[in-house]
């Protein structure tokens, strides 16, 4: 582990909105920026605007815990997440920008016989899908991460773990800035402080957006607004099966290297890594009620820490400096919704729940393809909106880490 190098240049062109674009992407988070980049890079579509109502990457991109992995259960999920992970592995060179991608491995702990069975099954499924995966017994867990308490006396003892060595973390704001700069260099307009307040339609088709900075026409409007997707979709009368909840996280003071990997525990609702600078970054469970407020309940943090301190006794002596919340958009099967909406000119990318960051380059790639061709890329084809009426669900409740 090393200190973070000098902050890289963040500069991109700050554009004034034009009257119309070929593609308007709503949401300047990681997904929106990556989509814009791959539209320009892979499809030569550079007449693109990314609209952000606040500052760039200030939503969930700034609020997640930066964990990257691809060990999901189903082939459909493994396909998109593994595509993303492969892109992560060369992203720094691709963008010409430091993103501090660190493949330090990810452990998913199992605390009950059922979780052991599920974990072992998932390892087999991952291997079949070409995703690196291992099953570790408690002693092997302790070898990978010596600070985990593997004593059988715990309330939730560690009975084993899945391990994906290629998983890891990256520096979230550098990822956003890298995509922003690269997209901007290719001609994409990045427009901050531009909130979408409505949609313009003609003959049922979406032909543009109304914003706090005026009307902007578009051949295609592509939503990429995570927890606020349902608010936008409501404006065009589209009902999306999403529940928005606050999900909290926190950071500790800066510490010497103590935690070499990433540890996630579904049962006790904790996932934690040590960032490059030395702070522990910990995620909590989601608040049970629906909310668009980026602030969660304090008892969720207390419960999370009770579990975390039991699992990692040394953490008792760290201090919480800051907590925050993001809004996660959870779909009924804990899988994303990407593609057509049934409304001409409107595309959707949402439902990533607690796991959108890791997919950033992969979904940017596939969503760009979907927008450019007017039909889904094979990797996001299973994640249609109409699967909730056809019943072709991709049930990832078990692998989505935080129980939804």
């Amino acid at each position, binding site marked *: 582990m090393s200190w973070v190098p000098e902050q890289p240049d963040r500069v991109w062109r700050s554009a004034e909105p034009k009257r119309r674009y070929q593609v308007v992407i709503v949401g300047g988070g990681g997904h929106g920026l990556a989509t814009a980049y791959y539209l320009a890079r892979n499809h030569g579509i550079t007449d693109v605007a990314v609209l952000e109502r606040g500052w760039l990457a200030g939503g969930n991109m700034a609020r997640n815990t930066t964990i990257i992995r691809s060990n999901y259960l189903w082939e459909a999920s493994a396909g998109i997440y593994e595509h993303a992970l492969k892109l992560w592995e060369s992203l720094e060179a691709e963008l010409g920008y430091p993103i501090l991608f660190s493949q330090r491995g990810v452990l998913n702990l199992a605390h009950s016989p059922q979780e052991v069975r599920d974990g072992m099954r998932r390892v087999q499924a991952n291997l079949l899908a070409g995703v690196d995966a291992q099953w570790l017994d408690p002693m092997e867990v302790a070898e990978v991460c010596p600070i985990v308490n593997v004593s059988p006396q715990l309330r939730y003892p560690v009975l084993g773990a899945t391990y994906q060595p290629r998983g890891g973390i990256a520096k979230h704001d550098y990822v956003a800035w890298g995509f922003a700069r690269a997209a901007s260099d290719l001609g994409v307009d990045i427009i*901050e402080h531009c909130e979408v307040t409505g949609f313009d339609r003609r003959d049922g088709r979406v032909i543009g957006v109304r914003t706090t900075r005026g009307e902007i026409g578009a051949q295609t409007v592509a939503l990429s607004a995570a927890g606020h997707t349902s608010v936008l979709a409501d404006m065009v009368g589209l009902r999306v099966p999403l529940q928005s909840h606050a999900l909290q996280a926190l950071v500790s*003071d800066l510490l*010497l290297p103590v935690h070499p990997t990433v540890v996630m525990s579904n049962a006790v609702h904790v996932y934690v890594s040590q960032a490059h600078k030395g702070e522990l970054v910990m995620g909590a469970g989601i608040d049970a009620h629906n909310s668009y407020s980026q602030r969660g309940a*304090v008892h969720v943090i207390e*419960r999370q820490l009770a579990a975390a*301190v039991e699992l990692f006794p040394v953490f*008792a002596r760290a201090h*919480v*400096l800051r907590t925050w919340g993001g809004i996660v958009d959870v779909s009924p099967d804990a899988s994303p919704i990407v593609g057509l909406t049934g409304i001409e000119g409107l595309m959707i990318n949402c439902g990533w729940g607690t796991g959108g960051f890791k997919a950033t380059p992969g979904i940017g790639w596939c969503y760009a393809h979907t927008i450019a061709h007017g039909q889904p890329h094979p990797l996001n084809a299973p994640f249609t909106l109409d699967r909730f009426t056809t019943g072709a669900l991709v049930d990832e409740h078990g692998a989505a880490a935080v129980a939804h």
Partner: protein
Amino acid sequence: MADEIVFDGRTVPVLPGQTVAGALWEAGIRSWRTTPVARAQRGLFCGIGACFDCLATIDGVPGQRACLAIARPGMVVSSRHDLVGAASPGTSATPGPPSAARYDVAVVGAGPAGLAAAATAALGGSRVALIDGAGQPGGQFWRQRESMGEGEERGYRDWPVFAGLRSIVEERVDHIPNATVWFAEPGFVLHTTAGRVEAGRVVLATGAYDRVLPFPGWDLPGVVTPGAAQALLKGSGVAVGRDVVVAGAGPFLLPVAVGQAAAGVRVIGVYEAGDPRGYLGRPGSIVGVAGKVREAMAYAAALARRRVPYRVRHAVIAAYGEAGVSGVDVARLDNAGQVVAGSVKRVTCDAVAIGYGFTANLDLALMLGCATRVSADGGLAVMVGGEGQTSVPGVYAAGEITGVGGATLSVVEGELAGSAAAQAAGSSDPLSGRELASLRRRRRRLRAFADAMHAAHAPPAGWPVWLEDQTLVCRCEEVPYASIAAAVTDLGASDARTVKLLARPGMGWCQGRVCGYATAELTARLCDRDVRRDDLATYAHRPFAAPMLLGDLSRPT
């Protein structure tokens, strides 16, 4: 045998009641923390728990503020900061409050305002809890050593007022010491480091800490706030240096200088950036505050007796030194608050106490949703009505957090707020109509005086000019001025919150307590506009009001 603690393997003598920082300072140790980025040395700075520069590992628990921790014989203090190898269970092991019952009124802060509020509410028959982070009541103004000797109270102003309030509190109020409120829920539930307290009404009297403007060298060991110098002296009986410069703005510099001089150290000079003649422009402001005028004259006489020069329109604009401060640049200021060309003089010293007024401690007020405003001194303050009621029903505020104004005003506001809270809680009115009318009159006069004081002792307009590119603005995250400027000029930030997200000032241990005012001011100036409420509030709003040990948080209160 003298009592001792161990610091990094070396024994350090301690006096009863001294803080760890006080004991280290007395032993000539000026720094005990290494910053993570520049590997710079830090020690005492604010001296009262706001800045987190003085962190040490104490008895195995890292991240303890040496300025607050009382040095107990046998304590082991280490400059290392890590989790591995620490021997303690990682909890602060403080006992809970005397009972978990619900109170009519909970008062947070046991300084002048809080003591007055608690005593007044209790006299009205309310069940009152007085919660305070320190071991002793009194706040910063009446800060004492744990075991004070006979006659030591002579060094304090208005000691009989304190003694009177304390005796009422001892008799009628549940005083919960050593309890920092880290989270406040509506309704009201106060989560403290000593357990949970519930109350129907809350009086916030959370006080203030020194406001410091950055300048080159302000992060050197030995450069401290006036409050730190005062706390070292009052709390630990330790002078801040041998050759001391006192600088900044405001009447607080006077007692600080007099205190150091009386302790036998050489006060090289008091450099006041403002100009007390400014009061003359507001003759109405000193009507009815004869005590304030007498107090200032007594301090001036004390300085003159000891031949300590008092220079107005002068400022310390840079500090120098290797391991610690060894000298400062003092400059004369013109009417516009800019350095007069050719007026800079080098002054040799081994300690600097510098501050420009105070910053109110607003995290709990903001957490509970109280409306705030930009106050007469340019800082943030809680908006209150005539009885100290805030915009949130059931929440009252008193003292410095309603606008910095000094201890006398704080006591008056505390009495008004305590009375209002007790009445709202259904207790009998502790004050007669005449007493209330008299309190309101006094409050008006003292507030007018405070406004005149802020005008006369405003931070000099030219301070940003003193900064160099590499001068730190945020001491915790080690953010230099150049990064703040780049966030606005290169990256397009137009408010202090965005500057925080782009350049990270205010993201470290102190969560913007120290750099908030400066960063908000710098942002506004770089954007060519005045400071807005939101610029200041973004550095005063904290999800938790104190950094909490994970071990403590893991045991729900």
